[in-house]
């Protein structure tokens, strides 16, 4: 199946000279939930805004369901719903006026029952005649989601959907995203919360300083995370891994002063005990031991730090 979104060599340089995107290549599969992680100013929102038509790209191109987002913008944009990061609303307009406007704006004929369902799913139905200014922040966020869904998009962008949102709404939001995915909607979300990406995403991309530094299946990423590492600090530096330790996943650090043993605690092998036994049989003395398990957050931080 062709990707629902293809991003090719996408660059963006703002008038100020700031290079927000430096050649992004990314394919989003149809029906997946893709989480885009990255620190503030990494280019997440710029990337989304280009796909949605709010920002013009400097170079490269984006296809949404096979349609170029610049040249064939009508076909591309009609498939995309966007929930932006910033809460914005026409203060005096009612919720109902807002969602009917959005649907019409995207060229869809009026469909009351559908909009009623959208509002009910988001617990907004009893607020439909309330002016936007009377709603709480969380409610406004729901309205923005309702507006994005009002024209039945195939692709939904959620830019920091849960920033500043209470726990209950966050859970509701996750629930909603899952049910949308069940209906075949492709979802791309950006977030600061690693937990959110872990909970929701099928794949995770990490963006930093305008570059995608990692794109991976979440399950593959989690497998890496599931591994633990034991670091053995040696009394005397070694030049190579002793032959007796060949049965284990052991590496020697560059300076030869540490042995690093990576293992999967869930596999049931008696890793550490047998390694220790072998070390003493080989007469290798050590000063200290330490184990660690990296979280997604650590991987994320180290990736971001390592990037130039």
């Amino acid at each position, binding site marked *: 199946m062709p990707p629902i979104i293809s991003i090719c060599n996408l660059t963006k340089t*703002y*008038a100020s000279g700031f290079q927000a995107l430096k050649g992004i290549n990314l394919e989003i599969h149809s029906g997946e939930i893709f989480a885009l992680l990255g620190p503030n100013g990494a280019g997440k929102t710029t990337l989304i805004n280009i796909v*949605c*038509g*709010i*920002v*013009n790209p400097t170079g490269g191109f984006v296809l949404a369901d096979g*349609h170029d987002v610049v040249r*064939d*913008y*009508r*076909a*591309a*944009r*009609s498939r*995309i719903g*966007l929930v*932006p990061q*910033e*809460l*914005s*609303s*026409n*203060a*005096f*307009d009612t919720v109902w*006026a807002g969602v*009917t*406007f*959005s*649907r*019409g*704006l*995207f*060229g*869809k*004929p009026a469909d009351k029952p559908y909009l009623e369902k959208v509002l009910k799913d988001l617990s907004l139905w009893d607020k439909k005649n309330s002016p936007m200014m009377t709603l709480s922040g969380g409610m406004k966020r729901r309205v923005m989601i309702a*507006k994005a869904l009002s024209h039945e998009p195939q692709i939904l962008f959620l830019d920091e959907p849960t920033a500043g949102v209470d726990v209950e709404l966050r859970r509701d939001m996750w629930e909603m995203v899952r049910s949308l995915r069940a209906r075949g909607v492709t979802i791309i979300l950006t977030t600061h919360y690693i937990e959110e990406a872990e909970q929701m995403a099928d794949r995770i991309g990490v963006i930093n300083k305008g570059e995608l530094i990692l794109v991976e299946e979440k399950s593959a990423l989690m497998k890496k995370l599931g591994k633990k590492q034991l670091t053995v600090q040696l009394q005397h530096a070694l030049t190579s891994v002793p032959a007796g330790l060949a049965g284990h996943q052991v590496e020697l650090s560059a300076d030869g002063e540490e042995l690093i043993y990576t293992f999967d605690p869930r596999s049931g092998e008696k890793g550490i005990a047998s390694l220790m036994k072998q070390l003493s049989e080989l007469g290798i003395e050590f000063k200290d031991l330490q184990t660690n398990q990296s979280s997604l957050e650590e991987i994320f931080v180290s990736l971001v730090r390592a990037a130039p």
Partner: protein
Amino acid sequence: MSAQEKRNVVAFEAIRAIYFFEMARFRRTLLQSIVSPVLSTSLYFVVFGAAIGSRIAAIDGVSYGAFIVPGLIMLSVLTQSISNASFAIFFPKFSGTIYEILSAPVSYIEVVVGYVGAAASKSILLGLIILATARLFVTFDIAHPVWMLSFLVLTAATFSLFGFIIGIWADGFEKLQLVPLLIITPLTFLGGSFYSIDMLPPFWRTVTLFNPVVYLVSGFRWSFFGRSDVSVGLSLAMTGVFLFICLAVIWWIFRTGYRLRT
């Protein structure tokens, strides 16, 4: 790709959505939108028509009270068109809701038709209400009703486009007020709303001919009384030129994404 998605198809649903959304705001603020111009027009008639006008001789055989009617209507239509349209596009920019317009599958022509159409409709409606109000104070006939309506529509459309440009250009409320206050108000007052430009000394008459509002008021007055300061053809041509300039600027704005797409 379905036929509906072909690039050149007009998104009527989107135009309709923008137009009615804007008109809904008009309905919500109906009282201010109508009462205040009607009140100020009535005041003009009391002051200029009754109090001062009775001491001014008829101009070209038209009583002063009736003479100022077309000018007053134009004055309101002009300022209201600009303020309606500039606010309509400035506000979404200010509040951030413009993202929705920018990410919608609509061409800029549809956006302009929606916003400018609504702004012009409002001011045409207002012009007609003022006309009806004026009729309560003075009697007059409209010599060329079709031309009267045409001038009204043309002016409302042109200046709504102009307002749209101001709304996009303005990056703060001050700028939004600046152009109407510093440029439009003087132009309208010096545009022959309250006098015939023949009454001016020759030098000032020549200066006045650079004021586009003169042509609007003159042409509009012709449609009422069959007399004008400048020829009707020239009035139409000048309005057309201004309309064309506004269209060209809007074309440029959307082509370059000026103040809309970074």
